[in-house]
């Protein structure tokens, strides 16, 4: 109870909560309003154009083709699998970065966020060189276990997880740093092991942050193109996700590309809208 009060007070001073009303009353200054509106238009205009130019009358035909559903299903399945991989590996990684101290931690954190700024195609090339049939690690996977990742659905998941996991790690690490470590300490003094404390105390505490990170990662995985086409190739039903289908449709059938883009847009909006409440709590 007392903690909640304290954190509320702290948040107020940080954001200037009580004064917020007074600041807003004089109206928005024009030098801020104008670029803000231009920015809004810039972000929304392409999406509006997509709706305006959509081939609405042929849309039902475009969307009922088996290939579209194949690509959409593969996109949803692989993005979900990539998010699961990110959760299993990313949450412990975030915990390591937030709760332990080791030399070079700042450097490790920078490396973890690297895929955020790395061009996805570069990520795909790097994955090929690491996990490809002739790759640094992939060579052994192939000769010992007979596993080759390129050109497989598993390869799609790997490529998507590589690009999406940093979003989850960043989000969870931020939440972990905000969460009061004294609860865990209390749990351990009461006899819980550190892992039990993590499982029973920390994890429920940071659940909203984990959820927000998972949504971010899922959305990123759903839209992933560069690393996927470079690492996993393009085969309908196996590695052809929606973004790949859109890109290739654009080469000779722009109408189909627009139709496919609309589906992806609708799915993305639905997910963000559906998880908005949780998202809000987390941020």
């Amino acid at each position, binding site marked *: 109870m007392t903690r909640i009060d304290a954190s509320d007070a702290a948040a107020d001073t940080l954001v200037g909560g009580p004064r917020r009303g007074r600041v807003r009353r004089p109206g928005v200054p024009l030098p801020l309003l104008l670029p803000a509106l231009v920015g809004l238009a810039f972000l929304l205009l392409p999406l509006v154009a997509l709706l305006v130019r959509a081939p609405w009358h042929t849309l039902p035909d475009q969307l009922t083709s088996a290939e579209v559903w194949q690509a959409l299903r593969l996109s949803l399945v692989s993005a979900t699998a990539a998010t699961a991989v990110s959760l299993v590996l990313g949450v412990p990684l975030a915990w390591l970065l937030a709760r332990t101290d080791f030399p070079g931690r700042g450097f490790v954190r920078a490396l973890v966020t690297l895929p955020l700024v790395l061009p996805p195609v570069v990520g795909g090339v790097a994955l090929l060189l690491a996990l490809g049939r002739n790759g640094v690690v992939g060579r052994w996977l192939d000769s010992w276990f007979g596993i080759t990742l390129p050109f497989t659905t598993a390869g799609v998941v790997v490529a998507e997880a590589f690009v999406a996991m940093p979003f989850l790690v960043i989000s969870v690490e931020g939440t972990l740093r905000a969460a009061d470590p004294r609860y865990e300490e209390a749990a351990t003094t009461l006899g819980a092991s550190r892992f039990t404390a993590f499982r029973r105390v920390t994890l429920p505490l940071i659940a909203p942050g984990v959820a927000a990170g998972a949504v971010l990662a899922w959305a990123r995985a759903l839209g992933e193109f560069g690393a996927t086409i470079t690492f996993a190739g*393009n085969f309908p039903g196996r590695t052809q996700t929606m973004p790949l289908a859109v890109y290739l449709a654009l*080469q000779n059938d722009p109408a189909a590309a627009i139709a496919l883009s609309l589906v992806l847009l609708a799915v993305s909006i639905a997910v963000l809208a559906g998880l908005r409440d949780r998202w809000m709590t987390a941020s």
Partner: protein
Amino acid sequence: MTRSARRTRRTLLAAGAGAAALLALSACSSSSGSSGSGSGTKADSSASAKPSGTVTVFAAASLKESFTTLGKQFEKEHPGTKVSFNFGGSDILAASITGGAPADVFAAASPKTMAIVTDKKDTATSPVTFVRNQLEIATLPGNPDKVSSLKDLTKSGLKVVLCDKTVPCGAAAQKALATSGLKLTPVSYEQDVKSALTKVELKEADAAVVYRTDVRAAGDKVQGVQFPESAEAVNDYPIALLKDAPNAEAAKAFIALVTSAEGRKVLTEAGFLQP
């Protein structure tokens, strides 16, 4: 809560700012590439028959090696000129020309992609076929899987990549397969001929069906295997002067070089066939 949330936000902001800076940079570099063509307009309006200024050539990715050589030759023969290339997938290039990209010459890898431009009446002269390209199988160096025909590619366990049907090399491959009545399931339909070849160069795939010119350009990183069915699926490469060419005079001279005996020699050496 707020502090670390802010830090996260700051990281994201920094990432965003970095991405924006990169975008701005790449925009700069691409605009500087075409800005030279503006000076060509001036030279052109002075009504001198001698080519000068920058000539901007949009050409299919498969022409990269030979056109680069020809460009250097052109600059040497016509001092004061500069040839600026934009190599890429023919479809993408055609789309950017009809979208208003400032180009003087367009060389496409198929009549179909050239038609995108001629349909919009964006060409000043009718396209001329200047070379033809034939398919070849690219295998790993030494041909460890002993591929000697198109049929060998259907062997189970062999990882083959093809170009997607939407791009010229994929359309040609499908035609060759259809002619021979073979059914081939590749591991991937790649988005262009170079990425199909790359998969073999990296040894991720055992074979790819690509152009003869690409096999030759790759040197000893891959080994080429010719197959008779490729004669049924030869791609014609048309070249044309564009309607709103900023530097039409120099563009005409460049097309003349490409279609001359000298140009033919360079293109034949690269593996192209004569029309």
